[in-house]
């Protein structure tokens, strides 16, 4: 059985106190607890402080471009659906630059787990505003305050057909570990939006800010009720942050609906097609 140590690469370079430490640890612990070892998982990283986890986490990994981790993850899953595939991305990365991919991955119910570091800023490029920042947020790129209202990642995922939508908090490690485990085991697309204070560039959305505004969904919460989920998701707009699995629905994932993969053999393991006569006859 693999250990946390086996999954640990370089010593992280995140700022002391950054929420990314919690997310990094939660991912490793979730993988260990699910009995995976680094040679059994594929992880795609976007670009940003979140993506820098590529050097700190051992796995078969692809450190992608800014915004493009999701289509890479989809490609890996289609080629070898037996591998669990995780995309570790940031809010600007996933909801800004890669927003189109995010919407369509929700629609497609691709069996990948997308873990978003949501801190309201672009940390790695020194603190410009991210799509999740509150209206009026002042940053180097928006000195007078951002005009746009924030993206609501949870409702965005829900209305576009995501079959698993969850929200965690980098300040609550055990809860986050359990969310990531559930997300990885979920069949189909899973979003885990993680509220993650950036201690260097975001002086508004701090640990204190979140601690006062987060709350956990209780045991009796009905995860399969879409309307209720939407209601919970919309609470973000009033700066109230539900934590837990907001929505979970059992449905076939993308690759399970492809006739080419009906026999459950992965694309890479299939026999080469050689009955060329079947195609050539159409050109005579």
């Amino acid at each position: 059985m693999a250990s946390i140590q086996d999954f640990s690469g370089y010593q992280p370079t995140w700022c002391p106190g950054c929420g990314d430490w919690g997310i990094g640890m939660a991912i490793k612990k979730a993988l260990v607890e699910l009995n995976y070892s680094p040679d059994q998982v594929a992880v795609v990283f976007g670009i940003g402080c979140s993506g820098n986890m590529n050097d700190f986490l051992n796995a078969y990994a692809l450190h992608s471009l800014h915004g493009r981790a999701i289509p890479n993850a989809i490609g890996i899953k289609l080629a070898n659906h037996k591998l669990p595939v995780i995309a570790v991305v940031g809010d600007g990365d996933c909801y800004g630059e890669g927003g189109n991919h995010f919407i369509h991955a929700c629609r497609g119910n691709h069996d990948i787990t997308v873990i978003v570091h949501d801190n309201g800023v672009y940390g790695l490029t020194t603190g410009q505003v991210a799509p999740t920042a509150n209206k009026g947020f002042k940053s180097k790129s928006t000195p007078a305050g951002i005009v746009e209202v924030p993206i609501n990642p949870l409702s965005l995922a829900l209305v576009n057909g995501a079959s698993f939508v969850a929200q965690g908090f980098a300040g609550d490690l055990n809860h986050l570990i359990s969310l990531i485990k559930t997300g990885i085991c979920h069949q189909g697309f899973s979003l885990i939006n993680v509220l993650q204070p950036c201690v260097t560039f975001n002086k508004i959305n701090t640990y204190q800010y979140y601690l006062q505004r987060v709350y956990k969904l209780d045991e009796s919460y009905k995860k399969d009720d879409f309307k209720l989920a939407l209601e919970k998701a919309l609470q973000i707009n009033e700066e109230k942050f539900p934590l837990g699995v907001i929505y979970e629905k059992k449905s076939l994932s993308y690759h399970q609906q492809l006739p080419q993969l009906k026999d459950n053999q992965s694309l890479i393991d299939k026999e080469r097609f050689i009955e060329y006569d079947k195609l050539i006859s159409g050109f005579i």
Partner: protein
Amino acid sequence: MTFTWKIGGEAGFGIMTTGLLFSKIASRLGYYILDYVEYPSLIRGGHNAYEVCVSDREVTALKKEIDVLVCLNEETFHKHKNRLTSQSLVLYDKEEFDFTDNFNKVNVPLKKILTDLKGQAVMKNTIALGASLSILGGKIEVLLDLIAEQFKKKGDEIVRFNQQFAIAGYEEVKKNYSASIKNFLIEKEEKKEKLVVSGNEAFSLGAVFADCRLYAAYPMTPSSSVLHTLASWQEKTGMIVRHSEDEIAVINTALGASFAGVRAAVGTSGGGFSLMVESLSFAGVAEIPVVVFLAQRPGPATGMPTWTEQGDLLFAIFSGHGEFPKIVLAPGDQKEMIDLTLKAFNLADIYQTPVIVVSDMYLSEGHKSVERDWVDKIVREYQIRRGKINLSQKENPQKLEIFLRYKITEDGISEKILPGTAGYFYQENSYEHLEDGHTTEEAKPRKDQVEKRLRKWQTYLKNDFQSPKFYGNENAGVIFISWGSTKGIVLEAQKRLKEKGIETGFYHFNHIYPLDKEIVSQFLKKNNKRYLLVENNALGQFGKILAMEAGLDFGEKILRYDGRPITVEQILEKI
């Protein structure tokens, strides 16, 4: 004997299907064909035309004169009459329009037959096909067979219903124009089985033969029919064919699949390719094999979507930021498209880098005859070469070990094991990286990795680069130089010049980039010969590459950039 049959009508009324049927008829009767379509970028209301050049020998270029013009509407006549001669036949419906010009009339009451037989508008085409076959001396059975194949799933009644339109057209001409019947399509006694394939279909076949397992694309003329063709085959071939949300997703899905170990390709035209280029650079640094099919159309921007141009060559060669190796190939015809597509997948794997196969609308959408035994042979002889991609499970190390994915090697190529291989792990990285894939900003490993990647070009030039093919007379004073789809047009011009007693030579390039400086400058020595560069663009882009790479500058250029293919006549005028 070589003749051109052309049909025209309103867009949306099955001209494309009808033209292709004519090509197949001629092919089944034992002839060689080359065809070409003209259509506007809209679904209804514009003018569509389809011409087929038929001969008993290989056809490499279109012909200026139209021998049989089938007018499904009056516009067709006016648009194309400048290419008719006094020998030409015009097949039309007098009820629709009439003309006084001195061409041979074949009046077929298309409208009346259609009404009498209670047909739908598109069946006018079937009547016209039957009539065409009749006036050209072909036998109707070939058309009836094709109709039967097309409609067999819908049952005998539907087959017979459609066939009667062909028969009616055929009989009508036989009855009224028996004296005008030509012997152009008499069934050949000796026939070679031939495929009628477009450039896009040739790429599709090549991709399947090469064991490409994932093809992703976003529709864009003139590349879309690759997407349609491969998608229609996917349940047979097992290939995953994905129409993603945009071209950026397209190439990144392919890169993900390729990272996981399967052969993957994407297809697009200039605009879509523009969106892909950041990711092409990613493939370059992360060393991910991918085949990009680039079917050019006239740009800039949306340009002229349904017309042809070779305007994206420099863009393809220099695509992607930063310095990394890529290989650019440009087939000259449908056969070369199959051949080079097969090679492209091998090269992408061997060099673990992007390979771009450049086509254009003229090659992509036009059909040409390809002998069946040639296809069978090339498939039989093809060997999948995956280079240093190790598909077998590597022996397990004592304990979990990081794999040196970017190990420095003499040939620039590092071993890759597949994600999921037990006992190892590694990352492929868009950042500059160390041998083990970890990100680095240190000077020495950066320099080492840049040089390692660029060495792949040297290895390619040594092992896999192919010199331009030479056609014609080596001692000739006139030498043509061209690349890609202009091949057949230059070959035909050479033939015509030879008939006039003018000897010429012709270097045709299909391994476009990188070029071997030594080889190229040796071929194209500065001497007293007259060199003519032939390109379907305004800048003479390949000429610029030859100037840059081999210091060769050609003053004389035959260029065309009005959206139409270069013509044989355009070349002849220059000599």
